[in-house]
């Protein structure tokens, strides 16, 4: 039996450039697919987008008076740029829960059996979530405007929103890594309590670090959410942003450099 001829299909090994082009093409395709899915689940979209507005109103009306004292500026001018960052951070948390659910579905096995870039499965998802985050941030800016918030300049507005979306994108990849590892939306949701709340609440997004206990101030000043909040606030208000923009970019680059390869490796390994 073994002397029979074998079907042989010549499949040339693609070069590096070809693989790169395919990876981009696949990522675009997967982004399209994830946006299509988002459109089919409007409740998920609205929840994610409204989250930021919810935090804005909550902090403005409930805690606003108490916190405003030490802020140095009108509290709405202090708060809105911080909420940009909080919006993208909670959006990033959804990358994890969404992806974990997705990885549990049978379609993921089909994708794995196809000649596609494995990066694209995660890349498409994170980009779709970043696009959704932009919508969420713009909505926060709109509601902020109604409450009296004003950008100092167009350039500052673009810079502030770009940094907020950038750090959210980086945290999306951190969550993609967690999701690829634990593969359960519930677990991802529970685990997010351990990073989401400390990063969110022990940050300068809502309140200046000086108002926190001394032992917490070091963390609260230098953790990524604070650094990006400060930068977004400075850019929005036309205050010289100084090193905060640089440190924001450093944080974003470092987080991406760690978590993009890590999540792709975990996703590949769990095949």
């Amino acid at each position, binding site marked *: *039996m*073994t002397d*029979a*001829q*074998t*079907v*042989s*299909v010549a*499949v040339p*090994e693609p070069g590096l450039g070809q693989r790169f082009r*395919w990876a981009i*093409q*696949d990522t675009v*395709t997967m982004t*399209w*697919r994830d946006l*299509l*899915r988002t459109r*089919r*689940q409007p409740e998920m979209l609205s929840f994610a987008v409204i989250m930021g507005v919810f935090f804005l109103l909550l902090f403005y009306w409930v805690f606003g008076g108490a916190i405003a004292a030490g802020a140095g500026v009108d509290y709405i001018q202090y708060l809105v740029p911080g909420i940009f960052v909080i919006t993208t951070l909670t959006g990033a948390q959804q990358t994890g829960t969404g992806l974990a659910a997705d990885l549990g*579905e*049978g*379609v993921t*096995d*089909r*994708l*794995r*059996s*196809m*000649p*596609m870039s494995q990066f694209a499965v995660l890349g498409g998802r994170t980009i779709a979530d970043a696009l959704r985050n932009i919508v969420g941030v713009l909505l926060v800016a709109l509601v902020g405007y109604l409450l009296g918030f004003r950008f100092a300049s167009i350039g500052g507005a673009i810079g502030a929103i770009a940094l907020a979306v950038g750090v959210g994108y980086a945290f999306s990849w951190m969550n993609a890594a967690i999701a690829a590892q634990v593969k359960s939306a519930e677990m991802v949701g529970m685990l997010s309590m351990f990073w989401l709340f400390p990063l969110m609440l022990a940050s300068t997004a809502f309140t200046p670090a000086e108002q926190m206990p001394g032992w917490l101030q070091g963390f609260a000043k230098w953790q990524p959410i604070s650094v990006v909040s400060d930068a977004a606030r400075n850019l929005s208000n036309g205050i010289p942003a100084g090193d905060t923009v640089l440190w924001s970019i450093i944080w974003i680059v470092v987080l991406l450099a760690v978590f993009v390869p890590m999540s792709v490796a975990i996703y590949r390994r769990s*095949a």
Partner: protein
Amino acid sequence: MTDDAPAQSVDASRPIAVAARGLSKSFGDTEAVVDLTFEARAGEVTGLLGPNGAGKTTTIKMLTTLLSIDAGAASIAGIDVASRPDAVRRVIGLAGQSAAVDEKLTARENLQLFGRLYKIPSGERTTRIDYLIERFELTDFADRVAETYSGGQRRRLDVVASLIASPPVLFLDEPTTGLDPHTRTELWGEIRELADNGTAVVLTTQYLEEADRLSDSIVIIDEGVMKASGTSADLKRDLERDVLEVHVASRSDLPQAAASVAGTGASASSDPEGTRLQIPLTGGAHQSLSILRALDAEGIEVADFQLRKPTLDDVFLAMTSGGGAR
């Protein structure tokens, strides 16, 4: 689907499309697949037959690059699975329980998604999708979201999705599980046609009838080990035992009847709900006489009996631990 039996001979002139050599896979202490060797040829349907948990899906997952191979080797269309998984993915299609479609997308969108990921150029892709939708009769639900589909519609889309890139090697993991008989027969016809057009089809099934009717060659697996392989006719011939089937008039007589058959040195198997005993004859046709005499002596009323050639069922029961197969 016609009722003609498929060609029941392994045609050695057909080229080998899938070669598994000593495939093994363990999960912890559980050996899911042990030293499995078989071949599948272009233009043929190769059926992996076995009960639940036999290692069929694990085998398919190894061959389709979804699971790493612990030991042994496999090649698809001459391409080594372990060393060139990306190349293997270009020549295979996968459908069934180890693959699925995006529930939130319509059939057309699913096919667009997979077609784009296979890098089929846009115009060609749309033509192909239109053709497949019509050919496999998805038209009625092609623009509805997949989560609203019936089991049969979903399975049909699943199979069609695996055909989008016209793969020379197609893996179908229990393609007809849960389908109604009509849909199943239709799907059989479509699978048969794919093979007749030159595709190498490897399918897993726990339905003996499916393996018997559809497969050119059958590999029986149980507890991860290959028990037998060959055409359905080969397997039946190897068994070389006629079977005496006895229907007792009263179901309550069944245990006693089985005991008295055992008393003659033969072994009887029965289905728990029925009144039927199946007795493989080891001592030729005259053995049936002594069995019937023994039943008569015990006063068991025999409603009917017949002597028949072994079916694949008998092969399967003889080869496996028995449970789970229908």
